[in-house]
């Protein structure tokens, strides 16, 4: 075993702490190189997919190793700041990196089959990996500047990915809408940054934190700025009021991309929102009128309620999942909404992070199952799913696991993460937030169980013919299912790590 302080005491230089991001970036470039050797050749697809998957898994492994070794954590000397404090590597960033990389790996392996007949596969994988790089950097951002740049690095490839099926009207429309709202929200975000800068004179989160207390004459500007930052995060996390894109984009986009966006991209939005709000605008030191916690409380309640109610009325499975992901954004927002000046903030935030981790598995899996179904050419509505359980039992079991887990039923990972979330909220004194969350959770069972019902209980139409059993998609779906299941018995290390690293933020 390597010495626990190895990564801080000189065994490895500090800059290696960004290794996960570097690995992803290099993988992306490597993909471009591979694609340049024989452009447009479809024999390349297996190579491309395996490079993307291997790169993501490598980054996952490195991030996991760092996390276990305690890189950037209190026990090895605290967060590592790099590049003029613009980036910070700490437990939280590594934890989120785990989510992004594993989702990217699952999406890459699944895309091998999904994209079988598509052109521009090299571009697809490199865009996925670049977006993952951006997300990793988002989780490491210690400055609003890097926050914005990395947010765009994550967003821009996503726009292209959503519109990837350029001859499919749905995909194009989804890409357009995602892009329009994304561009708008990034403009709002940039303006918010400029206002925060105007009020505080710095873009570095710690310096902003030091300046906000004295910025009382600019409190109005600061308040508007913070509100606009919130808008930017709301877009990335698909929370109210910038959530409109989500159903459209997820429905229209290629299903692996929907999986990627709704899991990793959402987590990235939360990663950056957590850090920015907690680090730059510490509660208890803010001038009046910048009480962002209240805003998050409202957003959390509205988001989860709206997402769940809208999901309940859908006929299209992908769209239902899209709305459910809005609902889950609402749950995760509790992590910010239940913060207090000196409560057990680390627990709440950590629970939210753990939920995002579990969500990364179950939601990715669910969308990848949709990808599998699309691959078979079966339709999109609940009725089209009828009887799949009899034809494809393994995948259907996996999907049932995802659905029950998303609903928060006990035997699966989603149960513990929701429990931890609500429990921490109650611990912080926000029992009403937990209550709203629990009621929404119960409601969500209704529409999740519709999928399960369609899969197993309804009878298939006689013409239902499934094609081959694609290896890549199956691997990814089963992997996600196993992950979702294992996160129940193995939830303790996850929540413990999450809460430890979250506590380090305060």
């Amino acid at each position, binding site marked *: 075993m390597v010495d626990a302080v190895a990564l801080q005491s000189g065994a490895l230089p500090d800059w290696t702490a960004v290794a996960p991001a570097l690995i992803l970036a290099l993988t992306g470039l490597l993909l471009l190189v591979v694609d340049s050797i024989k452009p447009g050749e479809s024999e390349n697809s297996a190579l491309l997919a395996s490079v993307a998957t291997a790169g993501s898994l490598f980054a996952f492994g490195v991030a996991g190793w760092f996390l276990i070794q305690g890189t950037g954590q209190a026990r090895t000397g605290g967060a590592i700041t790099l590049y003029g404090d613009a980036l910070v590597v700490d437990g939280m960033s590594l934890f989120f990196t785990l989510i992004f990389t594993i989702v990217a790996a699952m999406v890459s392996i699944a895309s091998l089959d999904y994209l079988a007949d598509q052109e521009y596969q090299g571009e697809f994988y490199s865009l996925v990996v670049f977006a993952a790089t951006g997300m990793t950097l988002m989780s490491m951002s210690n400055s609003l500047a890097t926050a*914005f740049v990395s947010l765009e690095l994550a967003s821009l490839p996503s726009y292209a990915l959503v519109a990837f099926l350029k001859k499919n009207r749905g995909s194009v429309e989804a890409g357009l809408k995602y892009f329009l709202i994304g561009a708008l929200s990034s*403009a709002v975000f940039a303006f918010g940054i400029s206002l925060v800068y105007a009020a505080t004179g710095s873009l570095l989160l710690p310096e902003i934190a030091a300046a906000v207390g004295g910025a009382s004459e600019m409190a109005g500007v600061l308040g508007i700025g913070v509100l606009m930052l919130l808008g930017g995060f709301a877009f990335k996390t698909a929370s109210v009021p910038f959530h409109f894109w989500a159903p459209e984009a997820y429905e229209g986009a290629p299903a692996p991309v929907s999986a990627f966006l709704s899991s990793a991209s959402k987590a990235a939005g939360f990663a950056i929102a957590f850090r920015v709000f907690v680090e730059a605008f510490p509660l208890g030191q803010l001038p009046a009128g910048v009480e962002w916690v209240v805003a998050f409380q409202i957003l959390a309640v509205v988001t989860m309620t709206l997402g769940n109610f809208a999901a309940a009325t859908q006929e299209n499975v992908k769209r239902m999942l899209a709305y459910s992901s809005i609902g889950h954004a609402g749950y995760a927002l509790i992590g910010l909404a239940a913060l207090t000046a000196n409560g057990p903030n680390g627990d709440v935030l950590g629970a939210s992070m753990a939920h995002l981790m579990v969500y990364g598995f179950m939601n990715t899996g669910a969308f990848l199952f949709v990808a599998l179904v699309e691959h078979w050419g079966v339709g999109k509505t609940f009725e089209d799913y009828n009887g799949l359980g009899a034809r494809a039992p393994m995948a259907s079991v996996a999907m049932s696991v995802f659905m029950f887990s998303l609903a928060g039923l006990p035997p699966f990972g989603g149960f513990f993460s929701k429990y931890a979330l609500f429990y921490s909220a109650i611990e912080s004194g926000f029992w009403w937030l937990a209550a709203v969350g629990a009621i929404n959770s119960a409601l969500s069972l209704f529409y999740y169980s519709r999928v399960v019902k369609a899969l197993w209980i309804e009878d298939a139409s006689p013409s239902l013919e499934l094609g081959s059993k694609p290896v890549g998609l199956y691997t990814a779906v089963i992997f996600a299912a196993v992950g979702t299941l294992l996160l129940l018995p193995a939830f303790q290390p996850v929540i413990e790590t999450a809460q430890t690293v979250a506590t380090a933020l305060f």
Partner: protein
Amino acid sequence: MVPPEYYLVLSAAIFCIGLFGILTRRNALLFLMSVELMLNAANINLVAFSYVWGNVTGQTFALFTMALAAAEVAIGLGIIMVLYRNFGGVDVTDATTMKW
């Protein structure tokens, strides 16, 4: 010396013009231009307050914002191209294959 509030008012005005454009225009290209306007409003703030605070952070970041705006336009134009090919126009309200 121009008081900093003026910059704020100016940038807010430009931001609002951009926002207005986004809310009222249906042409995707005009939408892009409006977004550029909003980003430039942010740039005005950044550069102006870079001067006010006496550090170059704002100016530097304004450069990054420009670069990102350009990248965004690159992607945006690509999407508008395929929009045109699929829907025969660049009206953002044309694309309604999915229900809202």
